[in-house]
């Protein structure tokens, strides 16, 4: 019994061994629950941190003193609040009351959660400003176009650099040089050339991802097993066929993985891009809310960016499982759906040969 416990515990911390599916689910939940728990603890437990006092009743405001500026609704430091109460006590007047509070820039989880919902329903403060969902949609479009343009150019160039020494020598030194320049430094230039609207913003996203993309894609291309190319050559494939029929399909799964990572990269340039020229999108919303000191809205907006990123990545990961059937087993429900639509003969009962194959593969794996 105790031995079993030991092995289960040992497995949790074994190097290069995946934990059990159940532990995996629990850990994933904890990944979000732990930060949330810490945040709640700081927000809802008055004796943890809470360096301020939110004044409910300032007591007798007629008493003069060093701290007589304390008024109802103010967020004052604990020392100031206690100083005021000493003054009031010395004068024998009514004391001030209030609750311990955190700084305004740290709203509690429920406030952010509420802001998350109400932010969408809050009318734009100025005429002509965008609603939150419009801002978000605008941001997504900037990312999308910046990334698409970057991929349309970056992927072919990267593949060429990875397969042909000629392109690698011609392109990569300059790309290496530019990629060390932070994309934002091109902001002013982009505005001067392209105006105040979306074009310079898309350009910043493009610059931020394109140069990295060329290098990442050319590296991925180089990692393709050279033996596959040689095999294709002995089968009669020539240059262009090698590229189209061997190199590209051969790197496709890794290319897809690269693109998922690079989209994340594009998001990191979003705020810079949106604050140049005419401020726009979610960044403009955050900028504005921070100026009004609506920090719960700021947090809600930041969380939205995170959620959109996570959501896109999960969707892309999910789609990826269908795109490359030679890499991963298809998800089990895929076969169920296939069977529903009459693919029963292929997906359902095995032919004898297929059963044999399975046995052979198992035997090989157990070796």
């Amino acid at each position, binding site marked *: 019994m105790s031995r079993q416990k030991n092995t289960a515990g040992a497995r949790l911390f074994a190097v290069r061994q995946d934990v059990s599916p159940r532990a995996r689910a629990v850990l994933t939940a904890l990944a979000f629950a732990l930060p949330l728990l810490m945040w709640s603890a700081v927000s809802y437990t008055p004796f943890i941190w809470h360096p301020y006092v939110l004044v409910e009743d300032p007591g007798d405001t007629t008493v003069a003193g060093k701290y007589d500026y304390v008024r109802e609704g103010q967020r004052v430091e604990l020392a100031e609040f206690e100083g005021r109460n000493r003054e009031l006590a010395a004068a024998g007047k009514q004391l001030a009351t209030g609750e311990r509070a955190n700084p305004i820039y740290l709203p509690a989880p429920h406030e952010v959660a509420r802001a998350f919902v109400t932010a969408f329903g809050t009318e734009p403060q100025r005429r002509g400003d965008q609603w939150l969902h419009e801002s978000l949609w605008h941001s997504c479009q900037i990312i999308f176009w910046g990334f698409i343009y970057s991929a349309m150019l970056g992927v072919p160039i990267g593949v060429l650099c990875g397969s042909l020494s000629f392109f690698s020598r011609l392109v990569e030194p300059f790309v290496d040089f530019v990629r060390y320049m932070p994309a934002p430094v091109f902001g002013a230039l982009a505005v001067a050339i392209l105006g105040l609207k979306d074009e310079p913003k898309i350009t910043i996203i493009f610059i931020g991802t394109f140069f990295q993309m060329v290098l990442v894609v050319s590296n991925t291309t180089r990692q393709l*097993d050279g033996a596959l190319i040689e095999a294709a050559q*002995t*089968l009669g494939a020539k240059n262009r066929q090698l590229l189209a029929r061997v190199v590209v399909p051969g790197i496709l799964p890794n290319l897809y993985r690269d693109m998922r990572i690079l989209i994340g990269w594009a998001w990191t340039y979003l705020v810079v891009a949106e604050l140049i020229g005419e401020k726009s999108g979610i960044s403009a919303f955050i900028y504005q809310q921070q100026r009004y000191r609506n920090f719960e809205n700021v947090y809600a907006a930041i969380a939205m960016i995170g959620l959109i990123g996570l959501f896109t990545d999960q969707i892309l990961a999910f789609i990826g499982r269908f795109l490359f059937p030679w890499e991963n087993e298809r998800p089990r429900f895929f076969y169920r759906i296939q069977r529903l639509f009459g693919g029963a003969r292929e997906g359902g009962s095995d032919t004898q040969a297929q059963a044999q194959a399975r046995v052979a593969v198992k035997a090989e794996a157990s070796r």
Partner: protein
Amino acid sequence: MTGATHFELPDYHEQSPPVRERFAQLDARPVVMRVDHLGKTFLGAQGEVQALGDIEFDVRRGEFISVIGPSGCGKSTLIRILAGLDYPTEGAVMLDGEPVIGPGADRGMVFQGYTLFPWLTVEKNVMFGLKMKGVKRREAREQARHWLEVVGLSGFAGHYPKQLSGGMKQRVAIARALANQPRILLMDEPFGALDAQTRAHMQAHLLKIWRDLDVTILFITHDLDEAVYLSDRIVAMGTGPGHVQEMIEVPVERPRSPEQFLSGPFLATKKRLEELIHPRTEEMRALEA
């Protein structure tokens, strides 16, 4: 040799009438591939390394020829040059009288490692060469089906390589190479990574394919039994730099079967190869004493 041999082995030069007739027939056939004073020197980081010396032999149509030699003697280098994947620094390779200048569909190649295209199904892998030639999809599929039948994998057309065992992968690789109907099939230790049982099965299978289709095969191995069992002739290579020590005509009658492993001609040939490929060194003699 010290130690008692309990029975007399025949001379490996002795050929029974059917064997002699077989070689007479082979000699009358045209030369498919001529390896003409081939040499290869690599220019490495530590200067020049001569991998191959003066290699010379002919391969005749329909013959099964093996190249055997100790590890590192340049067998892979040789076959890569024959395939056109590398170039010689001396001499030339002639295919049907024309010099080889690069890889091409007229020489099929089966590698030691698995080189099936993982993104293509078994059937599409076999169709690959045909598609490169511009054969229409339908026609290519029909031919691929045929070649899969030849290697006994008809039931696996829709599988991906990942789903196959090592032996099956090599059979698909053979079908893929054969589909181009090459002038010669080059095989570089194709069964080297397989376990003994699968390997024996593959050898028998390859012999059957060779006999049925009358293809020319150049086969590289470091396994003596494999070489004797499969080949008409064996090129025994030596190291430093790689060179041909002897061209051996295998005196074992055809059709071959595993029972012959213990026959006189088989053992005599193997003994000769043993002397050529695994010579006893002073150190080994000292250890044996």
